[in-house]
């Protein structure tokens, strides 16, 4: 039992080292890099949509990549209100999401 537990401990630590060194691997990453997430999403009539209403309560957005995926989800769910305009004041990004076609809701932008 002791040998098994020690082997599990070593594997655990090695995995955590790998996750710390390699981006994208799940590890004990807890809010260490939270980007500013200022943004505005408007429908065709100019009404502002709150993307957080499309997230489970308590979901903490920490990066723009995820935010843009949520925006795409909102756009797809609310296609009836397309086109949408999406803006990120701090990055200067402003795009129109047509809502039509397979990529009509994808936010294309160099990060």
């Amino acid at each position, binding site marked *: *039992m*002791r040998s*098994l*537990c*020690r082997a*599990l*401990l070593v594997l*655990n*630590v090695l995995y*955590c080292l790998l*996750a*710390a060194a390699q981006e994208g691997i*799940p*590890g*004990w*990453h*807890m*809010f*260490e*890099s*939270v*980007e*500013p*997430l200022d943004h505005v999403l408007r429908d065709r009539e100019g009404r502002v949509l709150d993307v957080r209403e*499309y*997230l*489970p*309560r*308590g*979901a*903490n957005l*920490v990066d723009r990549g995820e935010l843009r*995926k*949520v925006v795409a*989800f*909102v756009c797809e*769910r609310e296609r009836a209100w397309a086109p949408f305009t999406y803006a990120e004041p701090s990055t200067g990004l402003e795009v129109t999401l047509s809502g039509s076609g397979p990529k009509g809701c994808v936010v294309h932008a160099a990060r």
Partner: protein
Amino acid sequence: MPLAEAFRLRALERFDARAVTWFLRLFGAALVVDVATEVMAGVWLVHTGALYPWRHLGIVPLYPRSVLAIEWALRAAAGLALVAGARRVKVVGAAVRVAALVLLVAVLERYSNHGVLLFLIAFYLTLAPLDVTSPTFGERDHPALGLVRAQLAIVYVFSAVNKLTHGFAGGHSLSNLLGGALSGGLARALSVVVIATELALPLVLLRWPRAGLVAVIAMHVAFAALLPGVASFGLAMTAMAVLFAPPPRQGT
């Protein structure tokens, strides 16, 4: 005092039966709180397609709501069994097996740090039966419980390492996380305090278990107050911190 004695390095796999009982109860409570948090957060609506599939990695597809209901019921039942039956070896054995299996599926479907932590604890507890009523419990080694205790150190240390390597100490991440409510200087200072606390807690728990437990509770209460959805994680960490209570001295 020699270092090995100060940090009880010779008895890292010895545990106090009363502390282990409370660890099991708190771990059970964490399982129940985790289910309640998911219910209140609207994870059900994720499975209807109304909400964004938050944390869905795609390893296991989003499963039907009936399966989610069964998953929640099994996790809550395992948690309640641990709260009520922490001193019954068969109840603990069955509860941790069910919890480990269901949590593994849940984490593969929607990844979360607290889900992984709860799974790891449950999995470690399946490795050896735990009879806290045994009169010799405190005199025997319990390597699986040692693994649970080591997990606390792993979480804190690697969380701190990841913060250090991602520039958390600069204060911007904390400021952004709290919606810009902190000034630059205060955010920097608090960020350094968070990292220092995470690095120090495992050592404080080894050397001064009671003070360490108070610090763990204080830190996670603060996190839970500032960030929604992290209560079960704090409860699981508190449960693990309870395991640092020193074992009874032999012959007493």
